[in-house]
């Protein structure tokens, strides 16, 4: 590079300086936005979670979120954005445990279906169910969200774990641990059965083991 650089050719230092300034401004903007929105975002997520839990456990006005670690021990969590499996325990005004809300996921027709369901320790049954994430075919697979007949399955679904929770063909439900499928949305209905079965098998023993702690609310 012996030749004199053309006049309009700025030095590298100047370029770096410019880029540095721009990056600085950009970084400032991003960080300040991030800081400003941190609280509302967390609040939003918590509100949604609270609403969902309240919906699945009617009458629950106090909630505790537990995190579950690898060996099945519980820790009380403050926020909802910690990774790993979680339990949401709901208590009535008198502090009595109504039930526990659990999460499950399994592959449906188009993509993974995520859902939450509530478990009553007393009844050893599932007493509520809500889909939280769904990309199934509108008008067909998404009936698992809206179909009242399907949702009626979860008023009291036996989860004593003596029998596998399973989805059966539409109109042939005979036992309390069976889920009556929606005709025309068999795959999505089955995914629901599987996601509950899988999650229940994993989490309910943990709940039972820690029953006293959960009931005590600490």
């Amino acid at each position: 590079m012996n030749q004199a650089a053309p006049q309009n050719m700025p030095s590298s230092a100047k370029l770096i300086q410019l880029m540095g300034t721009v990056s600085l401004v950009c970084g400032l903007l991003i960080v300040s936005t991030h800081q400003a929105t941190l609280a509302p975002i967390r609040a939003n997520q918590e509100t949604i979670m609270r609403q969902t839990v309240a919906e699945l456990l009617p009458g629950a006005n106090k909630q505790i979120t537990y995190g579950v670690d690898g060996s099945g021990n519980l820790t009380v969590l403050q926020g909802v954005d910690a990774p790993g499996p979680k339990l949401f325990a709901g208590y009535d005004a008198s502090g009595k445990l109504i039930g526990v809300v659990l999460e499950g996921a399994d592959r449906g027709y188009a993509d993974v279906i995520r859902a939450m369901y509530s478990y009553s320790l007393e009844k050893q049954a599932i007493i509520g169910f809500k889909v939280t994430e769904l990309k199934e075919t509108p008008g067909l697979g998404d009936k698992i969200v809206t179909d009242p007949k399907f949702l009626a399955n979860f008023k009291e679904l036996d989860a004593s774990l003596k029998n596998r929770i399973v989805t059966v063909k539409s109109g042939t439900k005979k036992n309390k641990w069976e889920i009556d499928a929606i005709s025309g949305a068999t795959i999505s209905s089955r995914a629901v059965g599987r996601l509950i079965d899988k999650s229940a098998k994993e989490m309910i023993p943990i709940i039972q083991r820690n029953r006293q702690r959960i009931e005590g609310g600490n």
Partner: protein
Amino acid sequence: MNESSLGAIFLDSLLINNFVLSVFLGICPFIGVSNKFETAWRMGVSVIFVILVSSVLAFGTNLLLINFHAEYLRIITYIVIIASTVQLVEMFIKKTSPALFRALGIYLPLITTNCAVLGVALFQTARNYSFAQSVVFALGSSMGFTLALVIMAIIRERLELSDIPGTAKGTALVLMIAGTLSLAFMGFAGMGGGG
């Protein structure tokens, strides 16, 4: 961690949730570069290459970001990574295979604004894919992009010999064909899934 098997991820990103036909990523090059098979094929190959490299880089970067609790810089770092990957790939190809470089021509720099590349990086992060899963996902989705692009290019070459009504010529017809292809690809839904 995401539990999906590698095979399911590959099938899903290649056919079921094809980037172009069902996720709507990379539509601009899909419409713009699909009028000749030759160019479409070259574009496709370069995209596969760039997506693979940038996916690997993005995976590493994301680990760093999480480590430093700087997730808010994700978008900005990813786009920088992609822009530099394209540059690097361009230089690399220029050095190692000038013939390929000439063949790819202007398509390489164009890839920077191909949202499929950024899409792969963002999706793999959002879905918590492991390294192997990320690579398979990048491979599947970029091949899916190329597949759609090449099919469309050959159909369009054929349509050059047809008497398309004037009103339908151009983008509208491409979109119509894409819509029909998307309908046809719906047949793959549910494959590799719960069954």
